[in-house]
C-alpha cells in the first residue's frame, strides 16, 4: 500500500490518541476513492483488549465499539467474567436498544408518536430492556447495545458512568440517540436521551441532527424533557443556523405527516383504554369489542387488542381485512396447543377428512377458545386431545381454520354456516375452490415479470377444469363437454403449487440421465406448459393389479389420459390468446380512425399508410416494420423495454407516433433525417398476430421424452 506522509501522519495521530486506552488491537487500514483520484484512508480497530472498564468507557467517548471487535478471551475476561457473560448476551437476543416500532406503543406509554415517514437516521432508539449495569471501583457503568445503522453489527452504542448526567436518563422506556460531528478526520460523539417520544421531541431530535451545536442547549447538554419539549423546540429553532434550517426543513414536513397519521392511532389507544366508547375508521364503527360495517360485523372480547398489534389503522383496510386478521390470530392460538405436531398430519387431512367418518367427540375432550361472533353467528374454535381442530364441533383441516372463520362473513344464519363447515369438513376449501374454479398454471404468454416473481399464478392465468364424476364419485379432468379423465387430485394440486413456484423465468441447466446439459434453459411459460403436460401424464397414471390365469397377481400401470386430451386441456392458453388479440384489434381500430390511416398493399404485404408532418409512412401489419412510403426504405423503430401491449397494440402505437412524427423526433431518434435501410433485419421481432398451433408438437415432445426415459 502506498500512502502519502501527511495522510499517514493523520492515521498515526489517531492511533496515538486511541492506543492510550486499549492494551492490544489489530488495525486495518483501508482506502476508497471518494469522487477524486486521491484515495481516502480509514482505519478499523478490531480484536481489542482493554485493561479495565474505565479504559473501555474512555475509548467509547472517542470511537464507537462493535461488540465483535472486542477480544473477550484476553484481559477483560480475566478481570470481569461476569461482565463478559453479560456483554455476550447484549450481542445476542438481549439488545437494549431497538428501533421504534408500532408494537412498542402497547408496552410503553412514553411512545406517543410512531414514526413511519421520518428516516431512521433522524429517529432515536427506544431503550427496550433495562440497561446492563456493572460496578468497577467507585463507579457504576451502564451499557446499551443496539444495531449499527451502517454496518448492521451489534454496537456498544452507549457506555455511561454514574458521574455523568446521561447516566440518570438511561432507563427502560426512554429514548436515546447518538450524534456524530466530523471535522476533518476528527469525529465528536454526543448522546441525547428523552423521557418520551412525541411530536415535539421528534422535532428536537431532527433539529439536533441538522445542527450539531444545538445539543449544548439541551438540559444538561444531553436530555430532552417531554414536559418542556415544546418550549425547548421553539428555543432551538431560534438558535438554529441557516444551514441547519435548510437541512431540517424536509424533516419538519415528514414529522408533521407522521403526526397526522398518528392521530388515528391515538384515538384507537383511547378506545383500548376505555376513554372513549366508539370511533369510526374507514367507515367501520369500532368499539373495544366489535367492528361493524353495514351488514358485516365481528364481536370478540379481545378484538381491539388483537387488531392493535396486527392492523395498520393508518392504512387502507376493510371489514373483511379486520375479520381476516382476527381469524389468523385464532389459527395461531390453536396451533399453540400442538406446537410439535408432525407436518404429515396436514398432508393426510384432505384424504382423511374425505374418507374417514368424523371421530366421536365427547364433552370435555376438547379445549375451547372463547366464543366470538361474526355476523351474529357464534363461533367456538377448539382443539382436541389429539390436536384435531374444530369449529362449532365440526372438524376442520388445521391449515384452513382462518379461512373457515373468515368465510363466516359471507353467511347470515348459523344453519348456513354450519352447512358450510360440514361441507369443508368432508372436502377441504382448497379442493372445493379447485373444483369450482379450475387449477391455474403460469402457462400464458402475457405473463408479467411480477407474476413470475410471485409463487402463485395471477387471476389472468389459464385454469384447467376439473369436476366430480357423480357416477363413480371420482375427481376428473374435464377435457371437453363429454370427455372426463380420472386424476389423482391430491398429487395434482401439490405438484401444481411446486410447478407454479418454480416458473420464475430464471435460467437452469436441464438434467439428463448422464448429467447436466451445458445449454441453459429458462423456466418460462413455455417450460411450464411442457412440465404441465408431463404432470398430467403422471397424475392420470394409476396402478392396476390383474390376476393371471395361473392366479399370480401382476401390477401394471395404466395411463388414462391421451395425447389429444392433453392438447385439448392446454388449449385454454390459445383461447385466452385469441381473446387478447381480438381485443387489441379494437384498440387498433380506434388508432386507425384517429390517425386517418388507410389500409394498403405495401411491398406485397398488408400495411397501413399514415401521413405524418415530416413524411408519409407505411407500417407493415405482419411484423410492425415502418417504411418511408415514398422511398420504400426501412426506418428503424422498435418497442421500448417498458413497452406494454399485446396483439396489434404495437401497430396502434406506431400509427399514433408517426402521425405526430415532428413531435416524436425527441423520443424516437430514427425519425430524424434519412431512413436506415441497413437495420431492416437487425431486430428479430415476432409479434403475436395469430394463435400458432404449437401445442401438438409440445405434447408430442413430452411424451417422446417420457417414453425414452422409461426405456432407459
Amino acid at each position, binding site marked *: 500500500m502506498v500512502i502519502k506522509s501527511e495522510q499517514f501522519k493523520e492515521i498515526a495521530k489517531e492511533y496515538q490518541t486511541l492506543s492510550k486506552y486499549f492494551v492490544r488491537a489489530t488495525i486495518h487500514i483501508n482506502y476508497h476513492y471518494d469522487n477524486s483520484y486521491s484515495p481516502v484512508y480509514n482505519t478499523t480497530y478490531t480484536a481489542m483488549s482493554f485493561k479495565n472498564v474505565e479504559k473501555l468507557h474512555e475509548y467509547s467517548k472517542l470511537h464507537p465499539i462493535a461488540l465483535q471487535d472486542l477480544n473477550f478471551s484476553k484481559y477483560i475476561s480475566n478481570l470481569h467474567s461476569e461482565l463478559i457473560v453479560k456483554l455476550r448476551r447484549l450481542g445476542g437476543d438481549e439488545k437494549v436498544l431497538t428501533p421504534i416500532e408500532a408494537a412498542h406503543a402497547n408496552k410503553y406509554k412514553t411512545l406517543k408518536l410512531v414514526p413511519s415517514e421520518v428516516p431512521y437516521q433522524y429517529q432515536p432508539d427506544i431503550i427496550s430492556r433495562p440497561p446492563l449495569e456493572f460496578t468497577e471501583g467507585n463507579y457504576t457503568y451502564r451499557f446499551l447495545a443496539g444495531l449499527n445503522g451502517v454496518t448492521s453489527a451489534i454496537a456498544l452504542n452507549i457506555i455511561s458512568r454514574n458521574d455523568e448526567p446521561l447516566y440518570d436518563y438511561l432507563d427502560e422506556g426512554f429514548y436515546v440517540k447518538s450524534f456524530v460531528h466530523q471535522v476533518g478526520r476528527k469525529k465528536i460523539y454526543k448522546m441525547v436521551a428523552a423521557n418520551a417520544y412525541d411530536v415535539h421531541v421528534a422535532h428536537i431530535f431532527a433539529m439536533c441532527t441538522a445542527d450539531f451545536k444545538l445539543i449544548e442547549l439541551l438540559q444538561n447538554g444531553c436530555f430532552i424533557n417531554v414536559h418542556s419539549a415544546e418550549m425547548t423546540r421553539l428555543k432551538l429553532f431560534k438558535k438554529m443556523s441557516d444551514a441547519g434550517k435548510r437541512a431540517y426543513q424536509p424533516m419538519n414536513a415528514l414529522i408533521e405527516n407522521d403526526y397526522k397519521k398518528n392521530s388515528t392511532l391515538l384515538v384507537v389507544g383511547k378506545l383500548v383504554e376505555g376513554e372513549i366508547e366508539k370511533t369510526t375508521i374507514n367507515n367501520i364503527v369500532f368499539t373495544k369489542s366489535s367492528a361493524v360495517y353495514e351488514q358485516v360485523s365481528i364481536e370478540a372480547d379481545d378484538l381491539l387488542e388483537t387488531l392493535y398489534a396486527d392492523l395498520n389503522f393508518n392504512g387502507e383496510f376493510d371489514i373483511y381485512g379486520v375479520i381476516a386478521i382476527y381469524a389468523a390470530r385464532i389459527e395461531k392460538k390453536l396451533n399453540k396447543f400442538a406446537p410439535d405436531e408432525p407436518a404429515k398430519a396436514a398432508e393426510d387431512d384432505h384424504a382423511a377428512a374425505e374418507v374417514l367418518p368424523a371421530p366421536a367427540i365427547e364433552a370435555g375432550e376438547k379445549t375451547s377458545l372463547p366464543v366470538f361472533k361474526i355476523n351474529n353467528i357464534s363461533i367456538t374454535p377448539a382443539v382436541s386431545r389429539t390436536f384435531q381442530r374444530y369449529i362449532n364441533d365440526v372438524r376442520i383441516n388445521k391449515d384452513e381454520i382462518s379461512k373457515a372463520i373468515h368465510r363466516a362473513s359471507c353467511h347470515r344464519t348459523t344453519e348456513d354456516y354450519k352447512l358450510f363447515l360440514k361441507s369443508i369438513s368432508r372436502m377441504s376449501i382448497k379442493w372445493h375452490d379447485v373444483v369450482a374454479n379450475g387449477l391455474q398454471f403460469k402457462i400464458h404468454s402475457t405473463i408479467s415479470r411480477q407474476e413470475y416473481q410471485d409463487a402463485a399464478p395471477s387471476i389472468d392465468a389459464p385454469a384447467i377444469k376439473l369436476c366430480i364424476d357423480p357416477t363413480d364419485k371420482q375427481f376428473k379432468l374435464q377435457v371437453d363437454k363429454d370427455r372426463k379423465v380420472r386424476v389423482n387430485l391430491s398429487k395434482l394440486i401439490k405438484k401444481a403449487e411446486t410447478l407454479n413456484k418454480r416458473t420464475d423465468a430464471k435460467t437452469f441447466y436441464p438434467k439428463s440421465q448422464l448429467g447436466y446439459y451445458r445449454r441453459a434453459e429458462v423456466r418460462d411459460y413455455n417450460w411450464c406448459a411442457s412440465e404441465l403436460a408431463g404432470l398430467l401424464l403422471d397424475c392420470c397414471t394409476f396402478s392396476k393389479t390383474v390376476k393371471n390365469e395361473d392366479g399370480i397377481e401382476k401390477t401394471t400401470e395404466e395411463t388414462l389420459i391421451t395425447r389429444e386430451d392433453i392438447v385439448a386441456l392446454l388449449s385454454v392458453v390459445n383461447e385466452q390468446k385469441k381473446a387478447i388479440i381480438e381485443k387489441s384489434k379494437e384498440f387498433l381500430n380506434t388508432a386507425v380512425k384517429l390517425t386517418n390511416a388507410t389500409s394498403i398493399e405495401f411491398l406485397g404485404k398488408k400495411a397501413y399508410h399514415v401521413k405524418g408532418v415530416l413524411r408519409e409512412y407505411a407500417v407493415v401489419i405482419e411484423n410492425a416494420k415502418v417504411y418511408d412510403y415514398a422511398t420504400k426504405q426501412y426506418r428503424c423503430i422498435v418497442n421500448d423495454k417498458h413497452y*406494454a401491449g399485446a396483439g396489434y397494440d404495437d401497430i396502434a402505437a406506431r400509427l399514433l407516433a408517426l402521425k405526430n412524427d415532428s413531435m416524436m423526433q425527441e423520443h424516437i431518434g430514427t425519425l430524424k433525417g434519412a431512413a436506415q435501410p441497413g437495420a431492416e433485419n437487425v431486430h428479430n421481432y415476432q409479434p403475436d398476430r395469430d394463435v400458432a398451433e404449437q401445442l401438438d408438437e409440445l405434447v408430442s415432445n413430452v411424451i417422446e421424452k417420457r417414453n425414452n426415459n422409461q426405456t432407459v
Partner: protein
Amino acid sequence: MNTSNTSSIENSQLAEVANNLREYVTNLAAAPAKYKIEIADRTGHSTVADLSLEEATDNILENAENKARWVFINGEKFEFAGGNFRTQENVQKLQAQLQAMNDPAVLLTGMLVGGLLQELLSLE
C-alpha cells in the same frame, strides 16, 4: 266557449312541455362531462369509462408516470413539460385540453424508441 277552454288547456300543456325541455337542456349542459380512456396493456387493452375530469387526469398521470405510457388525445401527442408529470402547469394543460374537446378519445400506448442502428450511430 268550449273551443277557447280546450285551446287554453293545450297551451298550458305545451308550456309545461317547453319548461320540461328547457330544464332538461339546462341539466344536460350543467352535467359534468364524462371521459373514457383506452389503455394498451397485456390483456389486449383495457378501457376506463365514465370518469370525471379529475379522475381522468389522475388516471392519465398515473399511467404516464408510473407505467411509462404515451398519451394521445384525439390522436395528438400530449407532451409533459419539464420532465415532471404532476406539476401544476402540466395538470392545468391536460385538463384544459380534455375540456376543450367534445368527447375526446384518449389513448395510452406503450413507448417506442429508435432502433439498434441509431444506438450504434450515437456511440460513434
